[in-house]
């Protein structure tokens, strides 16, 4: 940075503090006097720059890049012909769309719908369910190449998009190509794009969103013109697509949101001379384009999702009974029977799927820890069908002889009679076998009325109105003990041998807890005989349910399950490791031929990106410090470019990266890929800044009232293309070296695997044993 110091301190004299305000660039009136930087008049540029900046050269470059992107992503896309890594999920979901079976997943549906569409288009019948990693596609006649082609196409198209983003942001062809090749030769992007995974579409949509937003911003002096509206709406549309592709897409929404807020804050500034009406007009336009349109689209994707998945499938059991009754052939819909008094039923715990069980054995008088029991009959949870699971519902009120009055309803007080021992379920203030805080459940002989009150239970049917009838399967309920207000509860904790290691059932004080929910599995015996014939109910029509209710329920479930993905995974890694590629993910291995796919990025490329980001943050920090001390080392227009354009890229990077530090769920390297793309953009502009302080300026499109500004043009000279060429060589050699891990072919010997392990933290398979141990 041997930049022109004289310009740096040029405007100190007249307006010390006020220069702070000039940094908010882009108004029609300011920064006109900043233009005599060491810049180049368009005519004075070096010849190589002139050549590269022509339309034809740019098209040629981008065409080459795109062709190579397609080549690298489609190379041997048919290998392996087996289910790889998360294809096990996303392939399965696509199959569900084709067979129209309801499933549940934490991610929004757009990409999976598109996979389903692709699968349908290439003739996949949805029969194959992608059950295990390593299942063969060819044996099961799955047109997997077609399905993989979809993300590969989007992944390839991301390259020209990166190029276009940089080009639109005013960088030279060389710089734009630099950013693009960082993605083009990246092994991680390639590996992720050529499999049935959500990330390539996510990254594609994210890039389109950024591109559209930049086009929109460039039209800021032509507000409310048709093209301004078009790019605004395009931003909103693709933002919705990003969000609907994968949960992480919400981060793109946040990025655009922050950028728009900063933008609006500038418009609000009274120094720009806008009226409040003008501000509100802008505000409304963005609300429509960036809030209303995306929400409508997002909802619409879910609407399609529900409209396609009309049949019962593996996702049913996640949903509420009301929801399940909207699904065709759903078990709950088919088998939901109303329960009448004196019916004999079996009761199952919702979370642990055990039956409420009792048997003549009694609790031991004294437990190992010295506490005393009531020595009553044991009540346990038991996983298997058994006659001891049968309970009869006994009324506590007078019943009519026949008719609907005999149906058990919400809020009724009932007794449960254990059929084989003829004793009533009860609980009392005695500590349960393993938990001193919870109450013991036991039974009491039917004929002994001395403990009558302790055998009374309130039936609370979940999400139901007073007087709703109690149904099998769908009638999720809690059983609240009347005198002591505890809820019948069980948990996966085994009792000792004296209870045959069955599961403990006890009374829990936190009745609000979701784990206290039970349901009636079946009606075993129909006491009054007039009952429901099960065969009649087979052809029930699905009920309808308000779309917004369904949507809300699914959203909440998705959030809960996303937060609940905390189980450890051998290849999960912390966000700290990602930018430096400390470890990758083993996607797939095949012992025969020692083949493996290992998700790892292009080491040189990733480290270049990290260095780029670090340098950029350093430049910003140094600039802030220097300005604080009244020195202005960077010319105003270059500084504006750094803060507003590169700063936006950095924002994209930070917003897509930093939130992961706060997440408790399991995290993987591929969560960094969107950020990696942003860091490639940052690296590109840092590359440009280091080579030359010249920029293309102005890049915003002139509006009717904008004063003309003297244009300057970036000029990297000959060194730009040369450095770019060197970089291409380095990246390409790293790419080639790691390619066997990315494409899963050819197989590697142990020594080769050891050699490919560029960092000792990469845990590759088939590594050769080190033989230098002297015994």
């Amino acid at each position, binding site marked *: 940075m041997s930049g022109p110091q004289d310009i740096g301190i040029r405007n100190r004299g007249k307006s010390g503090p006020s220069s702070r305000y000039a940094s908010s660039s882009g108004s029609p009136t300011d920064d006109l006097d900043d233009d005599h930087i060491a810049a180049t008049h368009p005519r004075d540029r070096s010849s190589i720059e002139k050549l590269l900046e022509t339309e034809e050269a740019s098209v040629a470059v981008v065409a080459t890049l795109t062709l190579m992107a397609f080549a690298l992503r489609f190379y041997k896309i048919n290998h392996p012909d087996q289910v790889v890594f998360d294809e096990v999920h996303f392939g399965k979901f696509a199959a569900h769309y084709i067979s129209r079976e309801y499933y549940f997943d934490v991610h929004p549906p757009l990409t999976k719908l598109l996979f389903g569409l692709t699968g349908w288009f290439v003739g996949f019948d949805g029969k194959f369910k992608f059950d295990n990693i390593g299942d063969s596609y060819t044996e099961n006649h799955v047109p997997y190449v077609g399905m993989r082609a979809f993300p590969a196409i989007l992944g390839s198209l991301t390259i020209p998009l990166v190029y276009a983003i940089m080009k639109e942001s005013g960088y030279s062809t060389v710089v734009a190509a630099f950013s693009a090749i960082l993605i083009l030769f990246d092994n991680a992007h390639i590996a992720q794009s050529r499999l049935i995974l959500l990330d390539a579409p996510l990254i594609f949509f994210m890039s389109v969103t950024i591109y559209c937003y930049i086009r929109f911003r460039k039209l800021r002096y032509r507000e409310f013109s048709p093209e301004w509206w078009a790019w605004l709406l395009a931003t909103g549309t693709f933002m919705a697509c990003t969000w609907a592709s994968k949960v992480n897409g919400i981060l793109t929404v946040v990025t655009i949101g922050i950028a728009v807020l900063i933008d609006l804050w500038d418009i609000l500034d*009274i120094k720009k001379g806008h009226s409040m009406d003008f501000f509100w007009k802008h505000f409304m336009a963005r609300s429509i384009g960036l809030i209303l349109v995306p929400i409508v689209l997002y909802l619409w994707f879910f609407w399609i999702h529900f409209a396609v998945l009309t049949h019962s499938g593996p996702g049913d059991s996640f949903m509420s009974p009301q929801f399940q009754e909207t699904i065709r052939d759903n078990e709950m819909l088919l088998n939901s029977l109303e329960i009448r008094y004196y019916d004999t039923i079996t009761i199952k715990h919702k979370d642990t799927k055990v039956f409420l069980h009792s048997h003549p054995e009694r609790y031991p008088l004294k437990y190992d820890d010295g506490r005393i029991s009531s020595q009553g009959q044991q009540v346990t949870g038991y996983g298997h069908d058994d006659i001891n699971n049968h309970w009869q519902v006994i009324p506590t009120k007078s019943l009519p002889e026949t008719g609907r009055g005999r149906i058990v309803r919400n809020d009724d007080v009932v007794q449960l009679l254990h059929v084989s021992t003829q004793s009533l379920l009860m609980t009392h203030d005695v500590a349960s076998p393993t938990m001193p805080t919870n109450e013991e459940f036991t039974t009491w002989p039917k004929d002994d009325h001395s403990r009558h009150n302790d055998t009374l239970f309130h039936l609370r049917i979940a999400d139901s109105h007073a007087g709703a009838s109690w149904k099998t399967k769908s009638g999720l309920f809690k059983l609240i003990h009347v005198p002591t207000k505890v809820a019948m509860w069980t*948990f*996966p904790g085994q009792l000792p041998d004296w209870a045959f290691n069955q599961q403990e059932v006890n009374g829990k004080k936190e009745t609000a807890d979701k784990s206290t929910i039970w349901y009636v599995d079946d009606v075993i015996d129909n006491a009054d005989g007039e009952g429901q014939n099960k065969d009649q109910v087979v052809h029930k029509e699905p009920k309808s349910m308000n779309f917004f209710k369904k949507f809300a329920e699914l959203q909440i479930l998705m959030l809960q399950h996303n937060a609940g993905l905390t189980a450890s995974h*051998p290849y999960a890694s912390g966000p700290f490791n990602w930018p430096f590629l400390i470890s990758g993910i083993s996607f797939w291995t095949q012992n025969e031929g020692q083949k493996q796919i290992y998700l790892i990025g292009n080491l040189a490329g990733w480290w270049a990106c990290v260095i780029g980001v670090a340098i950029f943050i350093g430049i910003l920090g140094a600039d802030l410090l220097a300005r604080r001390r009244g020195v202005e080392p960077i010319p105003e227009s270059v500084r504006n470019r750094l803060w507003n354009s590169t700063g936006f890229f950095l924002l994209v990077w930070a917003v897509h990266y930093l939130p992961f530090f706060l997440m408790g769920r399991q995290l993987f390297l591929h969560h960094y890929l969107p950020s990696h793309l942003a860091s490639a953009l940052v690296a590109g502009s840092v590359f440009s800044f280091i080579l030359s302080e010249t920029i293309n300026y102005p890049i915003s499109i002139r509006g009717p009232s904008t004063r003309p500004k003297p244009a300057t043009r970036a000029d990297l000279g000959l060194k730009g293309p040369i450095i770019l060429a060197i970089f291409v060589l380095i990246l390409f050699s790293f790419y080639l070296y790691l390619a066997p891990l990315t494409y899963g072919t050819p197989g590697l010997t142990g020594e080769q695997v050891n050699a490919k392990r560029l960092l000792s933290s990469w845990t590759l398979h088939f590594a050769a044993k080190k033989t230098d141990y002297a015994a």
Partner: protein
Amino acid sequence: MKRSVPDSISLDFGTPEVSPRTSSDFEEIPYPPFTTASNQQYSSWAAPQRREEELPLHYMNEETARRRVHASRGPASTGFYDEKQDQYDDDGKDVYAKIRASKIPLSSGRPRRPPAPPATSIGEFIQQNLEHIPPIIYTLLSCWTRFHAIGKSPRVIWDEAHFGKFGSHYLKREFYFDVHPPLGKMIVGLAGLLSGYDGHFEFKSGENYPDNVPYVAMRVIMAMFGVALVPLGWYTAVELGMSWRACHLVALMVLLDVGWLVISRFILLDSMLLFFTFTTVFCFSKFHNQQYHSFSPDWWLWLAMTGFSIGCVASIKWVGLFVTALVGLYTIEDLWEKFGDLRMSARDQARHWGARIACLIVLPILVYMTSFKLHFLVLNHSGPGDAQMSSLFQANLVGNDFARAPLEVAVGSKVTIKNFGYGGGLLHSHVQSFPVGSKQQQVTCYHYKDENNDWTILPRWDEPPYDPEAPIRFLKDGDVIRLSHVSTTRNLHSHPIPAPVTKHHHEVSCYGNSTVGDNQDQWVVEVVDDIKLGKKSNVDKIHALTTRLRFRHQSLGCYLRAANSILPQWGFKQVEVTCDKEDNPGDTHTYWNIEGHVNPRLPAGEPRYYSSPFLRDFWHLNVAMMTSNNALIPDPDKEDILASKPYDWPFMHLGLRMCGWSDDQPKYYLLGTPVIWWGSTISLILSPIVLVVYLMRMQRRYVDMEPREWEHFLYVTKVAFVGWFLQYFPYLIMGRVTYVHHYLPTLYFAVLMLAHLLDHFVFTAKRLTERTKWIVFGVIAFTIFATFWWFRGLAFGIDGPINEHWGLGWRKSWNIYN
């Protein structure tokens, strides 16, 4: 107290259209920027000082005055009356005068007042100290609430079970281990000492105190910290420049919050944590008010006091560090401002930095380390926490026999093996088997003494079995041995099966018995070095305690390692032991040393003194605390009725039963005074909205406040909101179990915010009449008092059957009633 009428003053500042920053201000108005509405309000209750402010020179001679001006001549040092004197000095020659006038320091907080002349009569003395009467009254009231019926429950209440016990350890001088730093527990021990407790009570939860435990006296000493919260709250509000009504509200809320009250009345760390949190905020606000008198004695005093408070609060519980972050952010902002001050000399810049580093970083660390030094000095006897520490440290404890064990380790010795990494435990095995992997017997690292930690060193399988009669074979570098677990006779074993948690290492298990086994039971002993003998080359025989070893698996070549990853419940949350395929010679988690050593054939060692450097022990203990703290994660298998989630706190979703709930004992329930908690939370939600509205109006150049007023508003809002956020947010992302009492320090900032917003919108509002202000103040004060009175039983102890007490269940989720 006589109050001036503020309405007449508020006419002085201006209509919004006039910019208040004109250079001619000081020529026309005697003290232009100072007479803000809030300051008028403030001084109205301290009326006697008004005259002196106008004539700052009457009490000092000219020489003193000149020195004073000189001393505060830092470029930024332009307090209001210094400003005036600068003008006397420069007499209009200062070319920068105009610029400087526009940069009048936007002081916020309490106006600085010169000290009063010494009182000549008692009447004058009282006159001068009138402002201290309300806090004195509040302190007396606070004594009543804190001490009233403090010994009512003669039982061990809640965490008294822990902290009382730890206090006892100091009296018995036995080393124990706990996740919290020692200062608070040492104070508990001191309280026990002062009240004549001998340290021999077990503090079993819920048990009755025997006659010889002076629990009332101990509780009273702890409660004194709680008493001090009230005057601290008052003076902090004063220092934050609040009006007298707001000061009263802060003091009332601190006095009458049931949560703060109940937590202060028992032998717990929380009253001290709260106390030092309050002192930190107080010292910090004091320091802020000295900002234009850099390097004056007061400035140094309060800066150092802030640092000292930080050190203390962090030595009570680590969560005290959250309040440090507030001071840290303030300091960064402050230094950033100073960095931009081009008129400040480089030397002054450096002094500012140096002062902060010395007082806010070095001093707290010294305080923290001192508390540990004392901890080690007091606890010099062997106790239950020994095994957390390094073998050398343990050898120095009185009552520990390591030093008497034979020096040189031989085949056939019965040993315990200690991991040398920070926080490492003893190699352990028990009859339970792995539910995953090989399903063989578990091997773990365990931090307590247990006979399952004993191992026998045996020869290889292909050698003749160990013969007690044969000549003694000492262990050397490179020897291949088996380690046989004494109580189960199984051998330490490893095989190429992924370890249960650290999947890319091999699993280590116990396998076979004294006759069954294979060559995967054999380990190569590799000496790293010896703490006494030095380098590896000096070590011929392996010494207990001092020689650092590594165990290499003979056939797999992997190294035995334990690195503080915790096994799930099936492994009893003990530390996982693995065999690391990588050879990292620098990884201390693969280092082990022989700790206990029993071999009847060898002579007992000399009782030697091994020195164990303090810094090493200090670091070691801190890592061990960190490791245990991280292990306090919510256990889905274990239902904890007491725990709550951070988002339950601000609106008080849950309370906490602090003791048994039977009819025959006084019952204490940890719950705040609802109006205080709810009101303060609402004020926190409102504050960012208010701030954004003001910022947007400023962006449109509406002048709602003059710069000084705005600066003050911003400062107090930042202190309250950022302070609250920094105390609250970490709990949201923390993995560990959280309880409602974790919110108590946080609540302080919420209370300040409530008082601040009321101050801003009501008590110092220019549009409202005195009458309105009185009514608002009265209603709020009465509501707080009435709610407190309604819930006082929660803190004073509820007698008799709980269900007979009516009207306490304001929210359904509170489990006050059975």
